[in-house]
């Protein structure tokens, strides 16, 4: 049996309520914020999140001392590594003591106005190791500290003339095509 009175009430109760579209979109915004990100992103967020740390004076001093010790250790390790990097591969493989020796190179060039050296020890850069005049006329000299190893080298006179060392054995071949000498530093070599 129909009940018009109740049907009218029910129709009113079923009538939609106006919806604010902004409020509806806010739901998805809140949902996105609530979604837990995967663990790598969570870990990264944890790492980069700024936080305030309280440290006692003693704790601060200990931290500073530890930090300084680490820096010192890293610097020394870096220096050792750099020195070792300059060693010839055969010297390192032979286990030779990395004892640097001063090696004097001498060239007699009466008419030269400038003399320099290029070799394995300075990456064949003539400008890096210039020779100086000695007290004897026409005699040029330089002392180069070298770790044990075998080095190819040549003199460069007046910037463009490559000259082998008459006092040293000649190297059989030179990658640069000019006269080249060889010097061996260290007994075991």
């Amino acid at each position, binding site marked *: 049996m129909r009940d018009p009175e109740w049907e009218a009430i029910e129709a009113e109760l079923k009538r939609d309520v*106006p919806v604010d579209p902004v409020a*509806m979109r806010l739901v998805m915004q809140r949902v996105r914020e609530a979604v837990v990100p995967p663990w790598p992103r969570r870990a990264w967020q944890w790492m980069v999140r700024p936080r305030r740390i309280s440290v006692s004076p003693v704790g601060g001093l200990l931290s500073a001392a530890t930090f300084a010790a680490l820096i010192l250790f890293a610097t020394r390790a870096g220096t050792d590594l750099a020195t070792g990097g300059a060693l010839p591969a055969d010297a390192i493989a032979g286990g030779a003591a990395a004892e640097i020796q001063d090696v004097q190179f001498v060239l007699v060039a009466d008419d030269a106005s400038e003399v320099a050296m290029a070799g394995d020890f300075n990456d064949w850069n003539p400008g890096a190791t210039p020779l100086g005049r000695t007290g004897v006329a026409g005699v040029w000299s330089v002392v180069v500290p070298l770790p044990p190893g075998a080095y190819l080298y040549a003199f460069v006179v007046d910037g463009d003339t490559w000259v082998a060392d008459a006092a040293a054995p000649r190297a059989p071949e030179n990658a640069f095509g000019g006269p080249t000498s060889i010097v061996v530093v260290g007994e075991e070599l």
Partner: protein
Amino acid sequence: VTQRDVPEVIVGMSDLSDAELVRQVQRGETERYAVLVERYYDVCMRYAFRMLGDRQDAEEVVQDAFVRAHGSLHRYQDRDRFRGWLLRILVNRCRSVLRRQRQATRLFVPYDSAVDAAATVEFVDPCWSRAVQRALQQLSPPLREALLLRCVEELPYEEIARTTGASVSAVKMRVMRAREQIRTLLQEKQNA
């Protein structure tokens, strides 16, 4: 009639069933949840507004219910209907708000221009609309809850019983009493 911007994700998704959408969201496709929000926001707003009597309170509760439902989606099972499951969460959220407000009845129905305007657009007398809402607010929350779930949301008595925690016979009795009371209240209003 409210003009809505349909989110891009919803286009072409309206044919998918609730269960399929829920599975997609469970697999991590969070944006698919927007389709479910779009589908049931009206239903939830209607229930919450009728239950709480205030549109702002209703919006907060509905948003909260959707966010909580998303957070609990891993507990959702296919045998539940999403709508009923969502309504269960909403019912509990409304109960919490009512407990917090400690208001058994709300005799004063706040003026809401949007609700009145919507009534006018649908050729409904705003005075009638407010009278029904006022009468509804005068019902006790358990009666109002049972009436709305049965007569407005049309849930089966068994599902209402599961949702509200009352027995099926208690739910039937509440619905009957709610109908009688609301009818009486409106007659008194007309006679006055």
